[in-house]
């Protein structure tokens, strides 16, 4: 029953599309196998850049934000300037579209030619991603810290642990565990945002695909890039979903 209706619905949609007078043209321009094949080596090479940038920036993001969040969670006047900075930082870098941030960082900072700072677009584009995601990720960690019940702090305090020991041994391990699903979802999002590097001229998968398009006026290379991204992201996203669901069940059980 269910299979039948699925087939019927999808079949009708396919019919509608292929019946278009322009379908053959679209097929040639978007789904031309020979063009996909031809562009594939370049797109794949670009995709390695995406993956490398993804992994490196992910590691940096997770560590830097954890540090930020921990410093922010400490109370007392000594840490006040940091809290001010964090608020400004988060407002600023969560508020600017990634496209703009990429342009400003990827093109602006290299122009500064600061002493001892590399000026490759790849480097500064990665920095733009890290800077932007750190803003989100710090908030995620913070929500994880907030979600640890105050009674845990009370218990740690009653045992005589200092503020830092409490954070280190009681709060942070639980906070990180709380936000693993959110972090995974950010990682999935980052995997795709790495494609923004293409805007500032880094020859990643999307840029390679667009170069091919510009040369041949054929868009099949974009499909090749899309396929690569799907291959990478579907397992990641499924894994993130699975972790999220398991985490939610764990939570429900605990409340029950």
């Amino acid at each position, binding site marked *: 029953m269910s299979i039948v209706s699925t087939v019927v619905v999808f079949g009708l949609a396919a019919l509608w599309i292929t019946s278009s007078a322009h379908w053959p043209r679209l097929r040639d321009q978007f789904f031309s196998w020979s063009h996909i094949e031809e562009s594939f080596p370049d797109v794949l090479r670009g995709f390695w850049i995406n993956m490398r940038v993804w992994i490196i920036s992910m590691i940096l993001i997770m560590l830097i934000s954890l540090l930020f969040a921990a410093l922010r969670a400490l109370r007392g006047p000594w840490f006040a300037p940091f809290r001010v900075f964090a608020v400004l930082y988060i407002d600023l870098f969560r508020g600017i579209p990634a496209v703009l941030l990429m342009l400003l960082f990827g093109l602006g900072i290299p122009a500064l030619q600061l002493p001892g700072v590399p000026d490759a677009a790849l480097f500064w584009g990665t920095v733009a991603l890290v800077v932007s995601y750190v803003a989100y990720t710090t908030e995620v960690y913070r929500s994880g810290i907030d979600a640890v019940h105050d*009674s*845990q702090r009370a218990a740690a305090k009653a*045992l005589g*642990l200092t503020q830092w020991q409490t954070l280190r*041994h009681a709060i942070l*391990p639980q906070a990180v565990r709380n936000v693993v699903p959110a972090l995974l979802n950010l990682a999935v999002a980052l995997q795709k945002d790495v494609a923004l590097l293409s805007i500032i001229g880094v020859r990643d998968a999307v840029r390679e695909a667009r170069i091919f398009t510009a040369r041949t006026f054929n868009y099949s290379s974009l499909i090749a890039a899309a396929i690569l991204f799907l291959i990478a992201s579907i397992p990641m996203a499924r894994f993130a979903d699975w972790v999220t669901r398991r985490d939610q069940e764990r939570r429900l059980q*605990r409340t029950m």
Partner: protein
Amino acid sequence: MRRIEVQDLTKYYGDKLVLHGIDMGVGEHEVVVLIGPSGSGKSTLLRCIGRLVPYDYGKIFLDGVPIDDPALAGNELPKRVGVVFQSYNLFPHLDVLDNITLAPRKVHGIDRDVAEARALEELEKLGIADLADSYPDKLSSGQQQRVAIVRALVNDPEVLLLDEITAALDPELVGGVLSVIRDLKAQGMTMVIVTHEMGFARDVADRVYFLDQARILEEGPPDRVLGDPEHPRTRQFLQRIIEAGRL
């Protein structure tokens, strides 16, 4: 000199008066039980004594020293006053042994081996040594509460504060935990206990305080306060509990 001395203690949460002019004392080896309706301030009083929340007015002394004295600063007070909570508050990411040895190792600087040996010894006494490697969420509520008690005991506190430690337990599991407390009393531990188990209160208390609406209304030996209360509010409170099929 009594071990704990509370003088004219007053505390607000925002605008709300939660403790008002509380005078109270706990002698050496004495077991004091606090009873009273929900919201009367029992937990807050314990928290003040354990310096877990600030208070607004009055004084609290441990062995004659004010608890905000520099001599008790840092972890000096927590070393001497142990707290066990209604909801156990075990650290869910640590196994039983790590839960228990965290404070000895980090606060008291005891070697892991020594701390663990001590922890196992205490667990043995309560008959749950085989759970040493389990994580809290794999334990029954009664087992968790016993671990929480051990966690407080390995700090070798001079005073134990116990806040409704059986309220969250399944009825069948209550007995086991309460008998642990009876043993502690037998060993001479000084304790302040908040409980709704009137049978247990009568059994274990040297003295009972009845709190209502931020004030102590009545104080005395358990037989009198629980058996023949002076204050009408105490009578009403006990009556209700009897109606509920308890006592």
